[in-house]
């Protein structure tokens, strides 16, 4: 897990999800299912054995009618940079067989189904429940196999899977760039299926290190926050919300603590060394 500092132009792909724009329609989930060959079962109501690379949670301010408010919160894999931003994401550091690693050139946390032997330690380590286990063999009934995409391999039972930030799209975009003898990808050349599929444009995706990418500015918004930041997992998925109760729901606070104060305290030491 040696960090490769030679990557002067290393990218840190990340996402900014504007919760004010998210209507909870679920298009991101379905766009993801169909992009990534996510299987389905006859009963998907147990959300704890349902394969979802991005799950939209519905959270509430818990105030009585008519002061009640709800907010939808899409949660893909946070692609954590890990404690100290060295790529030691909670899951990567625990996998005993290097079935998941941190790609220093993109900041994306991989999951290799053929390497994984299903110990589920990474699931225990991930505070976001972003990792899902294939409890069953996938089944695509009545010819449905025919719609499977060749760009993402189907998973066998007994292995862990998770959101890959549609890494195959990066691979394909790179293929094209090689053909055209380019080194760099344009912002729109590599977009995740959920970002592309979000009908209200709530999801923005790009290189957090690249000043010309939309995410670079968005993540600096005063209403930006990340989930469970205090754990120092350093997620690369940012959220925007104009509602303070939503921002507070994104992490744990002691009763007397103020959301923004803690947020800034947690953020700063790492934001300072942004460019590593």
């Amino acid at each position, binding site marked *: 897990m040696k960090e490769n500092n030679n990557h002067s132009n290393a990218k840190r792909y990340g996402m900014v999800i504007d919760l004010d724009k998210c209507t909870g329609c679920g298009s991101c989930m379905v766009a993801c299912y169909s992009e990534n060959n996510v299987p389905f079962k006859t009963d998907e109501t147990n959300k704890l*054995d349902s394969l979802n690379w991005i799950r939209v949670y519905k959270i509430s301010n818990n105030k009585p009618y008519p002061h009640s408010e709800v907010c939808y919160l899409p949660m893909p894999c946070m692609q954590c940079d890990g404690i100290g931003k060295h790529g030691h994401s909670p899951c990567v550091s625990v996998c005993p067989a290097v079935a998941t690693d941190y790609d220093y050139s993109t900041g994306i946390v991989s999951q290799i189904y053929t390497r994984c032997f*299903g110990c589920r330690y990474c*699931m225990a380590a991930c505070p976001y429940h972003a990792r899902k286990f294939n*409890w069953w063999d996938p089944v695509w009934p009545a010819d449905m196999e025919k719609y499977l995409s060749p760009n993402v391999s189907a998973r066998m*039972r007994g292995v862990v899977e998770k959101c890959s930030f549609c890494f195959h799209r990066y691979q394909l975009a790179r293929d094209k760039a090689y053909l055209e003898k380019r080194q760099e990808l344009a912002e729109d050349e590599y977009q995740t299926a959920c970002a592309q599929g979000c009908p209200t444009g709530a999801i923005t995706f790009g290189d957090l290190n690249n000043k010309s990418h939309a995410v670079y500015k968005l993540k600096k918004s005063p209403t930006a926050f990340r989930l469970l930041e205090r754990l120092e997992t350093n997620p690369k998925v940012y959220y925007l919300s104009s509602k303070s109760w939503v921002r507070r729901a994104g992490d744990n606070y002691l009763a007397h603590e103020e959301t923004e104060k803690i947020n800034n305290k947690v953020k700063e030491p790492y934001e300072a060394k942004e460019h590593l």
Partner: protein
Amino acid sequence: MNETPLIPAGVKRCSKWQFSLWMAAVTAVLLWGVYAMFLIWYKGLNQTNMNDAYGFALWIWADLAVIALGGGAFFSGFLTYIIGKDELKNIINFAVIIGFICYSSALLILAIDIGQPLRGWFIFWHANVHSMLTEVAFCLSCYFAVLTIEFIPLILENPKLAKKPFLHHLSHNMHGIMAVFAATGVFLSFFHQGSLGGVAGVLYGRPFAFREHIFIWPFTFFLFTWSAAACGPCFTILVTKITEKITGKKLVGDAAVRLLAKISGWMIITYIIAKTADTIYWAYVTAPGLGFTLMDFYTSSTYNIGLLFAEIIVCGFVPGLILITKRGRESSFLLMTAIILAVIGVSLNRWVMVLQVMAVPLFSFNEWYTYMPSWQEVATTVLPVAYGLIVISLAYRYLPVFPQERELNPID
């Protein structure tokens, strides 16, 4: 034809049919577990009630618990061969057998627990040296090998096998170098018991489990080693006492038991003080830094603060204090109470460090996660118990496990 007897000389054993009946009963339970095991291998882990929130559940607890309880082997070995507590030679054989059972069970459960058993060897071949689980797998396997080596000379002491000069000498020579293996075992155990503590302690995404580090190891690393050393011998004593109860014979002299109990008592007391310190530091420094109060971790009806009290006071200080007092050790009731509490205590510790870690919700909008094992999980967890009973029964019947048996139970 007058065969060499299978049963060691000078001891009484129950009749063949009694033994067969007993073995048949235990084997039935074993087969139930084996059936569940094959069901899981064939159909996959959907046979369990684990889920994406409970990736680690009953099995991992069983693993951690049996390894902690099997810790009696390495610690008794350490005391016997390295510290030179000769008195403990009267119980070391049994400690080794219990350790062997525990460790082989742990490996078996791991083989059932993984989603792709046929790829299990990836943990060695494609090892990630940063993972605590890798450390566990390596040390566990190595120590299991050591235990096997420690067990072999005892097996070779079976009258029928000992008749062959080669085997007899092998056994004798192996005994001679047992200290070397004991030392190796202690070294390996220190690491894998610790690593098992590390398994939970390094999870910095899980505030309930996460502990601050000393050098590269979280506190739990040391607490696990220590608690295994403290409570493992209690389990050895407990199994000895149960065996004595069932056979109706005294098998190990009081001196050995009391010595082990005394050492255990001091270990427990020191462990629980360390554990208390760790808990206080975690409750007042670590957790609040992550936005949690201690009580946030105990708001469920299952996982309430009573568990912490039970673990530290009832199953920690109480047995510790009993065992360090002479009267406590000499009263058979108090001794039994203490060793049972200690065994429960360490098991409880492993339980919360696995299952409560999974149960605690990390987001304010999530509920506590609940889990109830499926029968397949229960059967495969009972499987090692049945297996252990069979191994102990066979060993007791055919091997000279207890050096003091003949002396304590003279046959008229």
